[in-house]
C-alpha cells in the first residue's frame, strides 16, 4: 500500500477582493477578480477569493500565502478610478497629501490586520490595492471612471503576482 500523497503546498499568492456587486462601485474588486481569473485562475500558486469584508474570513482566506493583496473600493476624495497602493499595516496613516483612505470595508480590514497580528497570522507581505469609488448606492454596474480603474488595477496586479512568483 502506497503512502498517502502529501497535501498540496498552499498558494504562494492570495488576492482577496472585497465588495458587493449590488452597491455599484463597491463591486470594483469583484470585477478585478473576474479578470484576474482569466490569467491566473488555473494556476495553483495563486488563490483568488471574493469576500464581503468580515475580518475573520479575510484572515483565514490568506492562510499559507506569503504574499497577499487585498483589493477594495475606497473613498479618499481623489478622482474616481484612482488606484491607491498601501501597506496594510499603515491603513490608518495619512498619505503625502494629508489624506487617509476611507471606505465601506476598511474598518473590517483594520480589524483583520489587528487580529492576525494578535494571533501571529500575518503574511510576509500584505498590501491593499484601493480603487477610488464615487457611487456606492444600491444598484448594479460600475461608474465609468471606476471601470477604467479596474482595468489599471488588473494590469498592476498581474505584474505584481508575476513578480511575487519569480521572487519565491
Amino acid at each position: 500500500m502506497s503512502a498517502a500523497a502529501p497535501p498540496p503546498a498552499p498558494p504562494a499568492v492570495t488576492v482577496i477582493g472585497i465588495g458587493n456587486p449590488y452597491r455599484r462601485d463597491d463591486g470594483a474588486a469583484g470585477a478585478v477578480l473576474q479578470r484576474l481569473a482569466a490569467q491566473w485562475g488555473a494556476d495553483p500558486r495563486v488563490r483568488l477569493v471574493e469576500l464581503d469584508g468580515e475580518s475573520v474570513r479575510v484572515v483565514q482566506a490568506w492562510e499559507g500565502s506569503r504574499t497577499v493583496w487585498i483589493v477594495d473600493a475606497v473613498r479618499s476624495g481623489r478622482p474616481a478610478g484612482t488606484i491607491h497602493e498601501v501597506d496594510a499595516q499603515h491603513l490608518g496613516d495619512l498619505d503625502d497629501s494629508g489624506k487617509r483612505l476611507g471606505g465601506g470595508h476598511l474598518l473590517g480590514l483594520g480589524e483583520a490586520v489587528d487580529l492576525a497580528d494578535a494571533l501571529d497570522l500575518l503574511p510576509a507581505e500584505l498590501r491593499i490595492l484601493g480603487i477610488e469609488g464615487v457611487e456606492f448606492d444600491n444598484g448594479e454596474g460600475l461608474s465609468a471612471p471606476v471601470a477604467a480603474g479596474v482595468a489599471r488595477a488588473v494590469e498592476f496586479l498581474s505584474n505584481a503576482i508575476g513578480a511575487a512568483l519569480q521572487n519565491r
Partner: protein
Amino acid sequence: MTHEHRARRFEVDALARVEGEGGLIVEIHEGALTDVRLRIFEPPRFFEGFLRGRKYTEPADITARICGICPVAYQMSACQAIEAACGVEVDPDIRTLRHLLYCGEWIESHALHIHLLHAPDFLGYHSGIAMAADHRAEVERGLRLKKIGNRIVEVVGGRAVHPINVKVGGFYSAPSLATMRDLAEELRWALQASIDVARWVATFPMPLHELPHDIALVALRHPTEYPMLGERLVSDGGLNIEAHEWRDHFAEEHVQHSTALHGRMLAGGDYMVGPLARFALNADHLAPQAAALAAELGLTPAERNPFRSILVRAIETVHACEVALVIADGYVLPARSFVPVEPRAAVGCGWSEAPRGLLWHRYELDADGLVVTAQIVPPTSQNQPSIEHDLMHLVEHSLHLDDAALEHLCEQAVRNYDPCISCATHFLDMRVIRT
C-alpha cells in the same frame, strides 16, 4: 456620582460589534427614562424592488448578497418560497444536504458572534482582538470552529461566501463521498470543541435581567428536528401557522427613526425571534449531546434572560456540529442533486431559521416565472421593537449606573440579539451626546 436630576441622552451613532451599521439613542429626563430608539439601515428593501421582473431562478443567488454572514438563510428561504409557488417538493436527500449547509452557517455565525462579538462584553474587553491577548487558546479554538462552518458551506454550497451551488430545486451538483469523509473528520473535532466552548461560556458572569413577559417568543417548529428548516411557526402564546399565513398574523410597519421596517403581531404586542425563542419552543428536539449539555449547564426552556442567549448559541453550535456529523457520516450520493422546477403563475411563501431568527420570503410569480412582487422579512426587523422594549425595561432598572456603565450595558444587551445589519457599510463613528 448621581444622575438622578439631570437630563441624559446617549446617542451611540453606530454600534460596535454588531454586523453592519446601526445606532442607539437612550434619553433620560430628570431621572426617568423617556425613550429608547434603535436605528437600523436595512438593505432588503432595495432587493425587494430589485427582484421584480427577475426570473424565478434568480432570487436564491441575488438575495444571498443581502447578508455576508447568513447567505444560506436567504437562499433556503428563497428556494422554499419559489418551490412552494411552483408546487415542487424536493427529495429527502436534497433536503438533508440543505440541512447540512444550514448547520455550516449556524456554526460559522454563532462561533463568530460568541468569540469576537459578544464574549468581550462578558469578560471585560473592548474588542475580541483585545480579548485574544489573554484568551488566545479560546479565540483560536473559536476561529477554527468558525472555519469548519465555512468549510461545510464551501463543500455543499460551492464556496464559503455567497454560495454558488444552490439552485431552486436543490443543488447544481452533490459533494463527493471523499470530500464528505474529510468533512466528517473535521466535524469530530468540531463537536468536542463546541462542547468545550459551551462549558467556557457557561462560566461567564451573567447580568441579571428578564425579558418583559409581554414580548412573545416566536420560532419555527418541525415534527422531529430542531428547526433550521422548520415547517410551522409557533409562539409561546399558542400560535401555530403555515408559511402562507404569515401576513394574517404579522405585519411590518414604518417608524420615523429607522429605515428598517418594524415587525408587529396583528393581535398586538412585540415578539422576539432568534436563539432564545427557538430554544424555548424547541428544546425537546435538540440532538442528544446538545440536550444533555443544556441540562448540565442549567439551561431550560423557561429561560428568559436575554444575556443567556450567548449560552443558547453555544448549545445550538453543539447541536449543529452533532447534526452535521451524523449527516456527513451517513452520506450517500443522492440519486439526483436537484428536482426540476417549472414556473407557474402563483404566490409562494418560504421560511427558515437564520442564526438570528426567522427569515420569511414571499414571491408572486407570473406564468413566465418572472417575479411580480417580492417580500423579505429578516429577523432583525422583526426583533427591532422587542429590542427597544427590552432595553426600556433594562435601562429603567439600571438608572443607578453612570453613563459609561449604562452605555456598555445597553450595547451588550443589543448584542444579545446579534442584530444583523450587514451589507450596509461599516462606518463606526461612535458618539455619546449628553445634555
